[in-house]
C-alpha cells in the first residue's frame, strides 16, 4: 500500500524506513506542487518539525536568557495563546520553569487549559509548584510592551492579574507557511491562522479533518519514531475501507453542481465529477457526518450503505444499497433513498417531494448527536418513556423505562412522559426542515450537539445552532412560541446538563 510522506523533516528518511519495515510503500513528496494529480484518498503522513521557542526546546537556552536579567525580574511562560498546547510542549515548559525556579528565579506559567492529565504531567506540575513556580489560568490576555518590558494582564472571567516581565516566552507554535501550503494542497480544513488541530490535541493527536492525512509533529517525538509507528500503521491500513458503513451519496440527476457541499464538507470528501456535471463523494474519505445531506440546496445528497466491495467482510444485508438510517425528517414519503435510483421512480423523486403528513408524536423530540448526547441519553432520561426513532447503521441502543428518580441531585425526570429520540451522526446533519417537521408532531423539540471545539466534524455543532437560531427567529416572525425549540451543548460526561436541558425543554424553557 502506497503512503505519501510529505514534508522536508529531518526525520523523513527514518520514517520512510519504518514504513517499509511495516511492509508499506512510502513515496516522498517534498513540495505542495508534488501533491497534484495524486489520488485524493492515498494515505498521507504529513511530517512537521514544529517551530517552537528555543528557550523551551534547547538545553541551556533559558538559563542563558535569564542570566542577563536582574534577580527580581519575572520570567513568564505563555501557553495556549492561539491553540491549546500539545502535551509535549507542556512537559517542556514545566521542566524549564522548574529549573529556573530552582535557580531562584520568579517564574510564572500562564495557561488556558491543561489537557494532558497523565502521570508525567502530574509529577512535573507537582515539582514545579514545590520549586515555587506560579501557575495562572486565564481566559483572556492583554499584552503591551514598553521599552523591553512586557505587561501581561491575565483575566479568568472574575479576577485579573498584571505581571511585568522582560522575558515573555510564547510557547505556541510559530505559523509555518510550508505547512499551510501542504494543507491547502491536501484540502485540509484548518482553523483560523491555518492551525490544523486547533484545540483538539487532547482528542486525537495527529488527527486532521481529512481521514487519510496524519500530522506527525516530530518535535513531540524527540526522535523516538517507533513510539507512534504501531498506531500510525494501523490508521493507514484502516484506510482500505470506508470509515462508516454508510456514506453520503450525490444523486447526479438532482445535483445543481453548486459546490456548496464541496465547500462545507469538513473532511474534503466531495469533489467534482465533470463528466456527470455533479459532485461525487469519495467513499473512503466520507465520515458520514451528514452535514452535506442537511445543507444541499437541491436535496440531492442522501446516505447510502457503503459499497460492498469497499466494505469487504461486512454481512450482505449491511451492504445492500438500502438506506442506512439516514438523518430523516424531511425525506420524501416515497422513500426511494439509497443507491442511484432508476427509471420512473427516479424521475418522480427528482421532481416532487411530499410534505410529510403530521403524525402523532411524543411530548418532546430530541435530535441527539451520536457522538455525545445519544450516548448519555439513557442515563439522563431514566424514568421517562423514551422511544428511539431510528437506530443508525452499526449502532445499538437500549433505552428502557426505569423507575423515576435516578441518582442525581437535580429534578427527577417525570415518569411516563413520551420523549422521542432521533440519533443523528452530527448536529450539522439536522436542518431546519427536520426541526420544523418535528414541531408539527411534538410539543417541544430540542437538539443536543457536542460542546464548543469538540465537534469531530469541525463545525457541525455550530452549524446546527445557527439553524436553530434562524428557525426560532422565523417562528417568532410567524407569531409562534419559539421557546418550543431549543438546543444544548453537551458531552459524554455531561449527563446532568443534558437532563436539565431536556427537563427545561419539557417545561417550555431553555438552557441559558
Amino acid at each position, binding site marked *: 500500500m502506497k503512503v505519501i510522506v510529505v514534508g522536508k523533516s529531518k526525520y523523513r528518511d527514518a520514517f520512510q524506513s519504518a514504513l517499509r519495515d511495516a511492509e508499506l510503500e512510502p513515496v516522498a513528496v517534498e513540495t505542495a506542487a508534488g501533491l497534484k494529480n495524486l489520488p485524493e484518498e492515498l494515505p498521507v503522513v504529513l511530517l512537521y518539525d514544529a517551530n517552537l521557542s528555543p528557550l523551551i526546546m534547547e538545553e541551556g537556552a533559558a538559563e542563558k536568557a535569564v542570566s542577563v536579567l536582574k534577580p527580581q525580574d519575572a520570567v513568564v511562560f505563555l501557553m495556549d495563546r492561539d491553540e491549546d498546547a500539545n502535551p509535549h510542549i507542556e512537559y517542556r515548559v514545566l521542566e524549564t520553569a522548574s529549573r529556573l525556579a530552582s535557580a531562584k528565579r520568579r517564574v510564572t506559567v500562564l495557561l488556558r487549559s491543561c489537557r494532558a492529565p497523565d502521570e508525567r504531567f502530574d509529577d512535573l506540575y507537582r515539582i514545579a509548584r514545590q520549586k515555587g513556580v506560579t501557575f495562572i489560568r486565564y481566559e483572556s490576555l492583554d499584552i503591551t510592551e514598553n521599552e523591553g518590558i512586557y505587561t501581561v494582564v491575565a483575566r479568568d472571567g472574575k479576577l485579573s492579574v498584571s505581571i511585568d516581565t522582560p522575558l515573555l516566552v510564547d510557547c505556541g507554535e510559530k505559523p509555518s507557511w510550508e505547512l499551510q501550503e501542504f494543507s491547502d494542497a491536501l484540502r485540509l480544513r484548518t482553523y483560523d491562522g491555518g492551525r490544523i488541530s486547533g484545540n483538539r490535541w487532547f482528542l486525537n493527536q495527529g488527527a486532521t479533518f481529512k481521514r487519510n492525512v496524519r500530522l506527525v509533529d516530530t518535535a513531540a517525538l524527540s526522535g523516538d519514531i517507533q513510539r507512534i509507528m504501531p498506531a500510525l500503521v494501523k490508521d493507514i491500513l484502516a484506510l482500505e475501507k470506508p470509515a462508516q458503513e454508510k456514506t453520503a451519496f450525490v444523486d447526479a440527476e438532482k445535483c445543481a453542481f453548486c459546490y456548496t457541499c464541496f465547500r462545507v464538507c469538513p473532511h474534503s470528501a466531495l469533489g467534482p465529477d465533470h463528466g456527470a456535471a455533479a459532485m461525487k463523494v469519495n467513499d473512503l474519505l466520507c465520515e458520514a457526518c451528514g452535514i452535506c445531506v442537511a445543507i444541499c440546496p437541491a*436535496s440531492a445528497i442522501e446516505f447510502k450503505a457503503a459499497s460492498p466491495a469497499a466494505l469487504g467482510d461486512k454481512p450482505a444485508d449491511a451492504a445492500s444499497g438500502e438506506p442506512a438510517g439516514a438523518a430523516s425528517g424531511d425525506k420524501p414519503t416515497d422513500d426511494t433513498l439509497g443507491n442511484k435510483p432508476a427509471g420512473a421512480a427516479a424521475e418522480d423523486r427528482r421532481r416532487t*417531494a411530499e410534505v410529510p403528513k*403530521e403524525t402523532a408524536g411524543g411530548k418532546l423530540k430530541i435530535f441527539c448527536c451520536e457522538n455525545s448526547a445519544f450516548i448519555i441519553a439513557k442515563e439522563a432520561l431514566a424514568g421517562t418513556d423514551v422511544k428511539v426513532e431510528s437506530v443508525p447503521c452499526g449502532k445499538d441502543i437500549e433505552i428502557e423505562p426505569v423507575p423515576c428518580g435516578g441518582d442525581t441531585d437535580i429534578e427527577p425526570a417525570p415518569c411516563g412522559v413520551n420523549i422521542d429520540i432521533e440519533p443523528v451522526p452530527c448536529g450539522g446533519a439536522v436542518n431546519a426542515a427536520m426541526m420544523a417537521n418535528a414541531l408539527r408532531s411534538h410539543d417541544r423539540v430540542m437538539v443536543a450537539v457536542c460542546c464548543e471545539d469538540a465537534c469531530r466534524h469541525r463545525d457541525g455543532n455550530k452549524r446546527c445552532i445557527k439553524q436553530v437560531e434562524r428557525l426560532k427567529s422565523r417562528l417568532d416572525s*410567524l407569531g*409562534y412560541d419559539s421557546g418550543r425549540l431549543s438546543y444544548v451543548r453537551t458531552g459524554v460526561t455531561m449527563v446532568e446538563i443534558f437532563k436539565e436541558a431536556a427537563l427545561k425543554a419539557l417545561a417550555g424553557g431553555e438552557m441559558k
Partner: protein
Amino acid sequence: MIVASQKPVEEIRETLKDYKKVLIAACGTCVTVCLAGGEKEAKELAALLSLSGEQEFKVVTPERQCDAEFLAEFDKDVRQADAVLSMACGAGVQFMAERCAGKPVIPALNTSFLGVNRDVGYWTEMCQGCGNCILEKTGGVCPVARCSKSHFNGPCGGSSNGKCEVDPSIDCGWQLIYDRLKSLNQLHRLYEIIPPRDWSTSRDGGPRKLRRTDVVTEEV
C-alpha cells in the same frame, strides 16, 4: 447567475392566507445555487407554513422555471392547487404565471442581482445587464454595476480610502478599476474618455427581446 433572497416568512404567509392547497414550486437552477429557492428551501418553507395545520402544501422542483418544457411537467400539480408559490426569480414567477391561467402565482423571493458566489453563503453583484459591455476598457471591472453611481470616467468625490460613500463596506468601483488597470500595466486606458452612452440597450429601451435568427426557421 441570478441571485435572490427569500421574502420574510410572515410576508409569504400573508400572501397565501386565502388559499387552502398551495403548490410550492422551487427552481432547480440559479436560486438553488444561491440557497434561496431550491428544493431544500422549499421543503423548509413547507414545513414551517404547515405548522398552522390549515393549509396543504406540495413541493415540486422544475429544473428551471424559465423554460416552458420544464413547467409543463407540473401542469397537473398546478391544476390541483388553489395557488402556486413560485420560488424562482422574477422571470420564473412571471413565466409560471403566464402558464397558469386563472391561478394566482405568488413570489416567494426577492430577486436581487446578477452576481457571483464568493464564499459559502456570500454573493456580490457584478452585472446589471445593460446590454452594452465595456469591460475591456475598464480592466474587467464593471463601472455600471460596481460603481454606485455608474460613473464612466473616474470616481466621484465620495471615494475615500478605496471605499464608497454610499456604504463603507462597498469597494469603490473606480478604485478597483484603477488597481486592476495598474496591475495590467494599462493605466493609459484611463485617458480614453468614454462618451455619454445610449441606454436604450438597457432598461431605457423598454422590455428587451433577443432573437437568434439562425436557429429560427419559422417566424414566431
